[in-house]
């Protein structure tokens, strides 16, 4: 796997990942004292957490506790929601992304995102979907043979090159749900981020596709930092190194981060009563 990345990455001229993947500051996110709001409503308050490079961090917790919101705060996507706001800081590669002069465009070079429902661009072919971030993003590489290399490399990383190599020019929407989701992963990988955020990436998929995606995460985790939101506790146990548990006391209340621990420990020996209830299936 790492072989593959090594052999293909030099193809990209001026590729942005100059440092060794997965192990540097570039893959680190530090959240401190973060509160996120939709208008007046607080989705969660006072969350502090460090996402360590090269690890898979799972976010678990009952519905409405603010997992998706927290994830969307990690790359600034939260701020695209009308009337949304944050206080506190999120540092990506050491820089506070809510500084007024930093925008999503910059953060995207470090942090990619995969959504709950596969959302390939419907008007673009499979290949065009993969290269969209490169063609329209900040680096603006419109054409050239290297784009094809990126397509192949990214689709290989997403484990679907063999499946689609003969129909790269078919619309992205012509794939199955699981393939679409892997296409979205390939699309994110193509811009070579250090961190990949995933919001319940398997919840719209069948069990087989789910296992395929989990396999992908395991394969890619040497090179990328993952943060994954999931409702599936087994999934969290299977793929993550660290698990963060969030909860919420009731509707309208802000969510809270209860505890962060290594996945093994959190599931076998949780320190907080709320976590015990949740992981043993008493609530949620």
């Amino acid at each position, binding site marked *: 796997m790492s072989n593959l990345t090594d052999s293909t990455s030099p193809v990209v001229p001026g590729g942005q990942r100059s440092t060794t993947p997965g192990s540097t500051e570039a893959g*680190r996110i530090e959240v401190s004292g973060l509160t996120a709001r939709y208008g007046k409503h607080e989705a969660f308050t006072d969350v502090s957490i460090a996402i360590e490079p090269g690890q898979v961090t799972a976010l678990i917790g009952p519905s409405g506790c603010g997992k998706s919101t927290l994830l969307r705060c990690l790359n600034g996507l939260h701020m695209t929601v009308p009337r949304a706001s944050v206080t506190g800081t999120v540092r990506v590669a050491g820089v506070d992304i809510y500084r007024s002069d930093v925008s999503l465009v910059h953060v995207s070079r470090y942090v990619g995102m995969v959504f709950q429902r596969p959302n390939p661009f419907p008007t673009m072919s499979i290949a065009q979907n993969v290269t969209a971030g490169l063609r329209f993003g900040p680096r603006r590489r419109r054409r050239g043979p290297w784009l094809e290399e990126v397509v192949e490399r990214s689709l290989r990383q997403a484990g679907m090159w063999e499946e689609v190599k003969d129909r790269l020019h078919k619309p992205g929407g012509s794939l199955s749900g699981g393939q679409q989701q892997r296409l979205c992963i390939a699309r994110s990988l193509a811009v070579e981020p250090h961190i990949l955020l995933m919001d319940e990436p398997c919840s719209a998929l069948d069990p087989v596709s789910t296992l395929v995606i989990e396999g992908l995460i395991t394969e890619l985790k040497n090179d990328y930092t993952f943060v994954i939101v999931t409702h599936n506790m087994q999934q969290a146990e299977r793929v993550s190194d660290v698990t963060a548990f969030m909860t919420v006391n009731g509707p309208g209340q802000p969510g809270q981060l209860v505890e962060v621990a290594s996945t093994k420990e959190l599931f076998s020996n949780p320190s907080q009563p709320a976590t015990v209830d949740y992981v043993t299936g008493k609530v949620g």
Partner: protein
Amino acid sequence: MASPAAVSDLPTDHLRGRVGYADRLFKATMFAAAGIVLLVLLCTAAFLIDQGWPALRHYGFFSFLTSSRWAPSDATPKGTHPNPYGILQFAYGTAVTSLIGMVIALPVAVAVALFITEVAPAWMRRPLSYAVDLLAAIPSVVYGFWGIFALLPALHPIVNFLISTLGRIPGVGAVFAGPFFGVSYFAAGLVLAIMVLPIVTAIFREVFATTPIDEKEAARALGLTRWEMLRTALLPRSRSGIVGAGILGLGRAFGETIAVTMVIGNSVLAITTSIFGQGATMSSVIANEFTEAVEPFHLQSLFVVAFWLLVITFVVNVAGRLVVRRTRAGLA
């Protein structure tokens, strides 16, 4: 906490300027286009009143609205009394033709929309709505032409019957008095009814479609017949939507020009009491006389007509939109 190397790793500086600049330019362009839309409305009002100003100043602001005699040949460059450009009969013509049109179109549109959304089998709905929409696609000049040669001859027996029955009733008889020469307020109203029907029907369809299915099913589950369901679950909810659609249809009828001009007779000298008599509307007089307006203050007075037409349709449309919007918001 972050190492200095990591900070410089986030390349904000060289990117920020370029990306931000293009983005802002794009946004500004989009808003400039939006500004043009606003500007069109403002400029229309301003330009019309500006052009009509000499006539308004010469004859007095309200003298146009107090007379119903439009006699450009009486106008002189000096004289101001009486104002030869009375426009009351045009306002009357616009109101009467539009009312006739709406009185006919509204119930028909309700029925058609109900039939399409509630009665027709599913496969017929789309073709039926297209057919009704097609009525809106036929150009106004074609309706006028068709009106002269197909509708007017067909009207004669019906109208003559109405004149000999309704026209005899003491009091209101004057409204239905003869003689009938074909071209008339009534004919214009009929053509308007056909022209606004598809517009009003489309809004009704939308309004009816917003009634939640489960509410309809609940009514049916109570053992109500379809008609009882429509009356108890659908129509009461749709009342303000129907009002809004009616107002919008009225606004549309107020402004219709060519078809009306062709079938109304264009008599500009006074208000004709009978709906079977000839007259003119605000829009028809503009279309008729605009390029031949040579008398003193003639063209300026036409701009006064255009200005008032703008004011009336603006008010009616704003009212209609507000009602329809409120309905939609209420149902959503």
